[in-house]
């Protein structure tokens, strides 16, 4: 039930993104900084949305950007980007997005443990607003239940 690693370098607060693609790239950049993914993983995450629509906006204000395990994933990892100005993904109910998670999973047979950890955090309906308003990386990690 544990989250993928969420080191401080994978967290960016108050970022500016021109559109949803830029927002997803910021999350991808966090995964690159933490060593979880290569640059190409951002393209993969964007391609999933181009192909299937904005379904990754899985709750009001929250996008879970992700793609399949593949050569661009180096290790399990999580990235969090909070946006200074919310961005529309085109979702009928859950726009605009204030918090973008980037999720990289190395092996698909382990993904359920990772997402169970996410469910533990976000089944608290206040968690998204807490993250969006967080002022420090430590605060984000505390909300996510990551050990300091």
């Amino acid at each position: 039930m544990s989250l993928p690693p969420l080191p401080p370098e994978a967290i960016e607060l108050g970022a500016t993104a021109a559109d949803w693609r830029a927002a997803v790239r910021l999350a991808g950049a966090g995964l690159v900084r933490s060593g979880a993914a290569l640059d190409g993983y951002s393209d993969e995450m964007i391609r999933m949305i181009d192909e299937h629509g904005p379904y990754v906006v899985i709750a009001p204000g929250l996008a879970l950007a992700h793609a399949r395990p593949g050569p661009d994933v180096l290790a399990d990892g999580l990235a969090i980007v909070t946006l200074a100005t919310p961005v529309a993904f085109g979702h009928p109910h859950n726009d605009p997005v204030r918090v973008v998670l980037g999720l990289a999973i190395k092996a698909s047979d382990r993904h359920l443990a990772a997402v169970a950890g996410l469910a533990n955090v976000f089944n608290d309906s206040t968690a998204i607003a807490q993250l969006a308003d967080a002022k420090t990386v430590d605060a984000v990690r505390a909300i996510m239940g990551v050990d300091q």
Partner: protein
Amino acid sequence: MKIVAICGAGIGSSGILKVNAERVLKRLDLDAVVVAADIASLPDVIGTAQIILTSAEFVDAIGKTFADVIVIENYFDTAELTTKLEAALG
């Protein structure tokens, strides 16, 4: 009973649906197997599934099916999942 949770990648969002559906089913004291899969492998996993959990974006791609297709808006809202699963299971 079998339930299939569908998303684009078969990891991530469909996994969250699976995890939360299992939590709700346990609370409702209902016995079901919940499988997470990507939309491309739905024909391989659907079998005798009674319910498909997914987002609005995948309804067209799922197409005609004997299963009830339940569209979830907030994947983390177990109250929404409870209401919609209870309605489908009548």
